[in-house]
């Protein structure tokens, strides 16, 4: 699989101070759902705006569909749908009229307007003006605008902002369907890993303008396993700590026992045996894995 979006040493400054982006090398694989994660102000939106040409590129290269974006802008945008920050909606027009504007620009069939309104659940909004929509409805209309011309790449910046839990589930389902059934590559940003971990196939984590991690979700999960701890619940935690230190391991006292990080499966029995032989009663042994949010926060220094 080739790269649908690739940035090479993308660097951007808004002032002479610290760069907003520092040599970012983003690689969004074709057919993937790429979760672009980072806290607010990390550089996600700046990266996406540069990829879409909304900001003038200063240093580095941007390739979309394998070609330099600046040289093929119009052609590239024909195959790309986007929603950056809050949805761009003409408040004085209806949902259908908002879509008709883009239908004229993209020259796509008129029936697409009704189709995408149906897909996002806004088919029955009739003559209601978009300015009177709830935040969730606006977000869905924004997605409809991005989907109208059946793009092969979707760039979405925090698309679940303002959605209720049910709306988030619906949005997730919709994006998954687009990816699986229509082969749409999706680049989606979020500041919450928990929000996208059930959706994405690939992850990029950015903070202070630097890409800290990039890889598949499976690679991120293997980090989770590596960071897992085994907790021994004993009748004498202080003595248990001494025994474990004697085995050249580094225990930590945790509520309800003693934890050992990065302990291999085979070592668990050995530690248990040593504790029992030293007269420490072991009531329970359990594995505690850091959740992805914890790994994410560790990476971004949260």
């Amino acid at each position: 699989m080739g790269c649908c979006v690739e940035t090479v040493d993308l660097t951007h400054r808004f002032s002479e101070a610290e760069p907003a982006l520092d040599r970012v090398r983003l690689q969004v694989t074709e057919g993937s759902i790429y979760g672009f994660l980072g806290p607010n102000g990390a550089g996600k939106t700046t990266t996406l705006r540069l990829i879409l040409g909304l900001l003038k590129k200063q240093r580095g290269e941007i390739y979309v569909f394998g070609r330099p974006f600046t040289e093929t802008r119009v052609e590239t945008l024909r195959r790309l749908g986007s929603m950056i920050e809050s949805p761009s909606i003409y408040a004085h027009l209806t949902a259908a009229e908002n879509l008709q504007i883009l239908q004229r620009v993209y020259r796509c069939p008129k029936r697409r307007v009704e189709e995408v309104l149906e897909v996002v659940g806004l088919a029955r909004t009739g003559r209601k003006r978009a300015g009177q929509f709830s935040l969730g409805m606006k977000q869905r209309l924004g997605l409809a605008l991005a989907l109208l011309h059946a793009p092969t790449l979707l760039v979405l910046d925090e698309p679940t902002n303002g959605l209720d839990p049910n709306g988030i589930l619906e949005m997730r389902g919709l994006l998954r369907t687009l990816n699986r059934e229509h082969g749409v590559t999706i680049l989606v940003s979020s500041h919450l890993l928990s929000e996208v971990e059930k959706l994405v196939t690939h992850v990029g984590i950015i903070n202070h303008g630097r890409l800290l991690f990039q890889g598949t979700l499976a690679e991120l999960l293997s980090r989770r396993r590596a960071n897992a701890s085994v907790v021994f619940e004993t009748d004498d935690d202080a003595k248990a700590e001494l025994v474990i230190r004697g085995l050249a391991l580094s225990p930590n006292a945790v509520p309800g026992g003693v934890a050992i990080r990065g302990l291999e499966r085979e070592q668990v029995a050995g530690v248990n045996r040593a504790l029992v032989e030293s007269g420490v009663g072991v009531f329970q042994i359990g594995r505690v894995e850091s959740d992805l949010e914890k790994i994410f926060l560790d990476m971004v220094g949260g």
Partner: protein
Amino acid sequence: MNFVNSFRAEWLKRRRSLASWLVVVGAFFTPSIITASRIKNHAALAPLYAADDFWRKLWNQSWESMEVFLLPIGIILATGLIAQIEYKNNTWKQLHTTPQSYTTVYAAKLLVVLLMLVQVFALFNVGVYLSAVIPSALFAGVPYPAAPIPFDDFWAANVNFFVDCLPIVALQYLLSLHFRNFLVPVGAGFALWFLGVGLLSWEYSYLFPYNHGAINFLTATGHFDGRKVPFRVEHLALVYAAAFTAAGWLLYVTKREKG
């Protein structure tokens, strides 16, 4: 075809907008006042309607406030409002991620403003005609105007006045696209218009781009010595309009942040 589609998309955006209402209100404002005044004074209208220069007088009366006052202000407001459709709705970012060149977007929006100006002229002409015929339709003592309508003269005046407006349209368009705050282009436009009115008595007032319409009208009605102007003001208006349009385009396409 790209441009036609872009224009059609831009045209749709003005539907139900404040700018589109301004076109109707601005075009019928003066004719409505004239109509109301004639209805009120209908008893004295018979000699006026029988006069040979009926249409010329009505035309001048209608254009007086329009050319000097309402049209420049209307252009300043409407052009600003058209650009504000994107700023207010935060839609520049959506527009600039559609497969259109920046030049196409710039030209399509400008054409919308120009066509709205054509609408104003067309509706205003209709309004002038209605302000003449409504009193005669309502009151038996007021005859239909005896003089024939001087279509050729009116057409030529319309074209000249339209060309005179182009520098204002182009400069206001430049300002409106460049500044997010609606008050900047509107404030600058009003200041320039005031300055133009103040300069009207100046020998070289015809050089000021906001004055061409007023000079044209005042010359036609004998209130300005047209011999002071060494060339046709319409030609200078076209030069200004071309220069402002080019400058506006350059500022627009080289803007660092596009939404």
